[in-house]
């Protein structure tokens, strides 16, 4: 059982996961941010692998990707940074990014190195479900690594159930038809959608992402599903306080909790 599965075994509600782009705002910011997040009581962290062409991301995460690439963040550098991270950090860690950088790194080596660093899950939004099942699932399972899939309001019940069957971490519930950082109202449409997902009684827990930006939006998501993921709002907050990252992280999390 990996750390994601253990987390959801003991905690079902109000799960807070934070997304941060590796190498942002500075090349060596990540370990500091991870420590501050764990100390603040965050349940899980998604570490973004920067990519030059992040088609599902809004301006804030695009910017963080560009800064990180400019800072020199690469997968070899990221794995070097994470090599001893498990001596300090015990919450689940997930790598999230677009397929091309891991492909160029060598997908098998990417998985091996992630596992060696103590990574628990992978999110690659542009990796097709069937390709995962045919080519990679066995390796993920052998290494106790969870692959995490996205669903959206347009994903049919049948497809959600298929995705649930192939998942063993959590389901990433994209709140609405938008890129990251989009303005989401969390009105009736979203609530109906969250209820629909809840009523499917999936085997995997479900976390809401995209548009979660503060306590109010977090609470709505957590009321319907197991918790939520915050990316853009966190990145903007860090960007605004580059010289006092540790305190900025704590302020941000306190405001949500």
């Amino acid at each position, binding site marked *: 059982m990996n750390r994601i599965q253990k987390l959801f075994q003991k905690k079902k509600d109000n799960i807070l996961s934070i997304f941060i782009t590796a190498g942002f705002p500075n090349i060596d910011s990540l370990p500091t941010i991870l420590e501050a997040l764990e100390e603040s009581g965050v349940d899980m962290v998604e570490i973004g692998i920067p990519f030059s*062409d992040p088609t599902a991301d809004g*301006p804030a995460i695009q910017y963080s990707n560009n800064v990180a690439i400019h800072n020199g963040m690469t997968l070899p550098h990221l794995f070097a940074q994470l090599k001893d991270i498990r001596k300090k950090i015990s919450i689940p860690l997930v790598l999230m990014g677009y397929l*091309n950088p891991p492909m160029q790194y060598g997908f098998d080596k990417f998985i091996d190195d992630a596992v060696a660093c103590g990574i628990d899950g992978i999110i690659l939004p542009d990796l097709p479900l069937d390709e995962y099942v045919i080519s990679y699932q066995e390796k993920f399972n052998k290494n106790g690594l969870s692959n995490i899939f996205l669903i959206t309001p347009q994903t049919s019940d049948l497809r959600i159930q298929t995705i649930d069957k192939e998942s063993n971490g959590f389901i990433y519930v994209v709140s609405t038809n938008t890129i990251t950082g989009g303005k989401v109202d969390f009105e009736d449409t979203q609530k109906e959608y969250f209820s629909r997902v809840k009523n499917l009684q999936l085997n995997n827990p479900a976390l809401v992402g995209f548009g979660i930006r503060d306590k109010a939006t977090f609470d709505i998501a957590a009321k319907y599903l197991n918790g939520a993921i915050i990316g853009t709002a966190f990145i903007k907050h860090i960007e605004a306080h580059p010289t006092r990252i540790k305190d900025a992280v704590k302020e941000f999390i306190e405001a949500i909790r």
Partner: protein
Amino acid sequence: MEYQVDKRGFYGPYGGAYIPEMLHQNIEYLQQNYLDIINSEDFINEMNALLKDYVGRPTPLYFAKRLSQKYGYKIYLKREDLCHTGAHKVNNTIGQILLAKRLGKTRIIAETGAGQHGVATATVCALMDMKCIVYMGEVDIERQAPNVKRMRMLGAEVRPATSGSKTLKDATNEAMRDWIGNPNDTHYIIGSVVGPHPFPDMVARFQSIISEEIRWQLKEKEGKELPDYVMACVGGGSNAAGAFYHFLDEQTVKLIAVEAAGHGIHSGMSAATTILGKPGVLHGSKTLFMQTTDGQVVEPHSISAGLDYPGIGPIHAWLFESGRAQFMSATDDEALEAVMELSRLEGIIPALESAHALAKLKEINAPADSIVVVNLSGRGDKDLDTYIREFKNL
């Protein structure tokens, strides 16, 4: 060897649909229905009528006598430059707007580099009374100002892509982001044989009218359907895909694709993807594109905005890898020379893109009297500013 797309959406190892879940429903629906829609009688009739009376097809296959004399081959120019809007791009936008109508979509988005695809999209949107939004890199908006005005005259909204390098690849990213946000009412008219399956195949089919016409036109003129060579420039590769399409399985026809070498292949200012690129996943498909060892996309350079794209469509990656097509590259300077040559020898001012194909006539080393068809994909009006700048003695 199979050169067409397979059932899973792949050309050999290239292609597929590497898309986030947000685009899944639209793409899956297209995958399952595009062939039925575009092969239906009603669709074909409407498309053929528009291609004839609105676009001006068939475009001539013109025997270029003076150019032929110079090179010692029988050179024919497929005159896509005479299409309405000035390039082959409209063949695809006509097809896709008719598809969008049948999908019940009311809003069209597109990406554009030089502005030719944007103009062709804005044109068919005006024709079909559809809302049209064209994403264009901020840098391209500046260097292609007349096309921006043309799109606006046609009623389109031109939205600047301000992310990344602010050129074609970023305009493509922005269009995809728009589609993620507007999946219900919007169809994305991709302008080249790129993107997730079924776009590369769909665009290739809409452009295949080029080679379909070449076959019967050549039969009329030469008594045989098959030329010895077909040459076309490749950015994403839509005009080349159309010019090659009905010759792919005719092994006697040599296919020559010409990429933009910019300032020179290894100058750091180039768009010669088959030489500089590696396989990877970009804009929804697995294909060859220029990237760093870390997998970050490298910004290309070409004097021709239409070839200024870091990748090639998956069909071309496969034609390259399988050896079915020979890939060559022409520098900015070679393309400019070819522009002047065609202008002076034949009285035709070609687009910079098409001039890249013309520029390699001197290097194909074909036997004398070989029949060589060059796809003249567009006319040079849009490039006049560049020509005025580059040809100092005008």
